[in-house]
């Protein structure tokens, strides 16, 4: 009759190729640059054991005499250590690669946990409404008013006090995923709930109910797929936030120990040497952290502009 009937239906690839998402990516050089940097950083971090010249976790590979050597472009550098060494004599480049790996693993792990908790709670609250909704949302409100960072610090402090410093350091990755995941689920829950409420009032959900479909089918087969774009958009922001939160916790001494450094604990360990002029120990991992978070945030901004989902405000 009009636009849709003339040609055969497109394939999935053609659909993606013609999609607005792909179109705007092609026409947005910032998004392209960010995407390339992001892919390079993630792959370099994941391939750290193969790329790095030394394993910073293994102190037998480290020569303490080589400590505080500057990067290659400054006098006094050593060709073995292109970005210099830290106070323990570890190669900065290798340490940063490993550190970025830890930061990314914690960031993604924490976001997966947040999403699992948050999406489940958000779906339940939005679809069931009533007391479940009131309870979960009030919980989320209280937690948010306390601010996620504060909650993470408190939970971290409690964990540390419960398990003791040594055990805490040993399982730091897992614990940090748990801490950040528990602290930040309300963001997901509120976003998902808001879009579930918006979707639930649409008539296709009524149509499904009139068909007699059961609540579970309606929730997961009909409503959930339609809340994916806001989930996707806040996921980018949340990964950036989780990486920053991890860095903050490590900086406060509630995160990764210096022996298995993340970007945050690298910054912390270098902080003490700032006065003595060894700026690279702090500022190089700092720069890597900022670039990583920045490209994720810029990609998130781009996604939000393209998908334009109704996000929960406030």
């Amino acid at each position, binding site marked *: *009759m*009009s*636009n849709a009937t003339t040609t055969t239906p497109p394939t999935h690839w053609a659909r993606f190729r013609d999609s607005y998402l792909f*179109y*705007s990516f092609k*026409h947005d050089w910032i998004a392209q640059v960010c995407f390339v940097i992001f892919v390079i950083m993630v792959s370099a971090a994941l391939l750290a054991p193969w790329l790095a010249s030394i394993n910073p976790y293994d102190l037998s590979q480290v020569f303490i005499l080589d400590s505080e050597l500057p990067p290659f472009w400054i006098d006094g550098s050593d060709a073995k250590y292109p970005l210099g060494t830290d106070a323990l004599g570890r190669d900065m480049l290798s340490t940063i690669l490993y550190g970025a790996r830890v930061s990314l693993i914690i960031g993604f792990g924490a976001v997966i946990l947040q999403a699992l908790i948050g999406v489940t709670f958000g779906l339940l609250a939005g679809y069931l409404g009533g007391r479940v909704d009131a309870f979960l949302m009030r919980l989320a409100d209280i937690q948010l008013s306390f601010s996620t960072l504060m909650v993470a610090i408190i939970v971290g402090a409690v964990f540390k006090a419960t398990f003791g410093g040594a055990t805490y350091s040993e399982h730091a990755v897992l614990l940090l995923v748990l801490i950040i995941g528990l602290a930040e689920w309300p963001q997901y829950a509120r976003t998902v709930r808001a879009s579930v409420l918006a979707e639930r009032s649409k008539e296709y959900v009524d149509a499904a109910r009139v068909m007699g479909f059961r609540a579970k089918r309606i929730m997961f087969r009909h409503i959930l797929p339609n809340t994916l774009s806001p989930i996707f958009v806040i996921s980018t922001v949340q990964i950036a936030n989780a990486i920053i939160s991890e860095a903050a916790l490590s900086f406060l001494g509630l995160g990764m120990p210096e022996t298995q450094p993340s970007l945050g604990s690298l910054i912390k360990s270098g902080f003490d040497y700032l006065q003595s002029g060894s700026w690279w120990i702090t500022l190089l991992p700092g720069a890597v952290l900022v670039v990583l978070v920045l490209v994720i945030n810029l990609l998130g901004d781009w996604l939000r502009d393209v998908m334009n989902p109704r996000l929960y405000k406030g």
Partner: protein
Amino acid sequence: MALLEVSHLDVRFALRQGEVRALRDVSFTLDRGERLGIVGESGAGKSVAAFTILNLIAKPGYIAGGSILFEGRDLTRLKPRALQNIRGNQISMIFQDPMMTLNPVLTVGEQMIECLKAHRRIRSREAREIALNKLRQVYIPSPEKRLDQYPHELSGGMRQRIIIAIALLLDPDIIVADEPTTALDVTIQAEIMSLLLELCEKHNVALILITHDLGVVSQVTQRTLVMYAGRVIEQGPTREIINDAQHPYTQGLINALPQMASPGSRLNQIPGAMPPLAKTPPGCAFHPRCGFSTDAAGQRRRDCREDVPAFVTSGNCHVACHMVRELVERDPVEPGEAS
């Protein structure tokens, strides 16, 4: 000289996917005190036309050509300041949805008085008196109380009356009303429409009424303009268009109304749907849906497919159709054949 003279207006929207032409070669005139209806289906460009008259088209839309002469001045070329002096003062506007049109955080009085103060050197007390007076004219009960109320405290019908009162505040020459009753209930619609009609007649205000409702047009306006896919396809005296439309689309639109078929029988439908503005077909935009554009062999006529039809004068009407002459000869047309 006509009060308002719109000629060859061309409005485009520069969207990321490409340029969309929302209005093409739209021309019409409006005399003092005249009531003109612009009808069309959603997406025909009639709202764009309404906003263009006040040069209120916002980015990414822009006026690409044509002129709007009001009292000898071209509104498309005026400086923002001069336009501001005309808006709400000599030409005012009524919007579609009264629930969205008034600012929720300002009182009715503030929104009325600011309009007076923007155009006249006037003291607040005087402005308040004028506002009260206008509220009385639109039959608002206890107007003193209303002035200090916020919009959300009033019903939709009441808000639309207040918007009409604002439109009338400075005794304008023209009111542009964009679907002023679409968002309202049937009984309220009738009330608002008759109020608008009464006030326009009383104050000799010209009215441009944009609507999709042929019934409203037939009752309120003297002249009608039918739009399809961004173009004017037919214009003339309302009575003649309603009773004896010339363009196949206008005919189809009128014949598709339930009241034109006997109860229980099938309605006279136009096949297909109006193309989106970005995908307007070449030639006459209506030709893929038109029941007359085929020749004896059942093929689409070449001129309908390729050439944009020029206006042909038929009686008091101007019609943009290649086949007007033939159709007039073939009269009377059986509407059922149109599909």
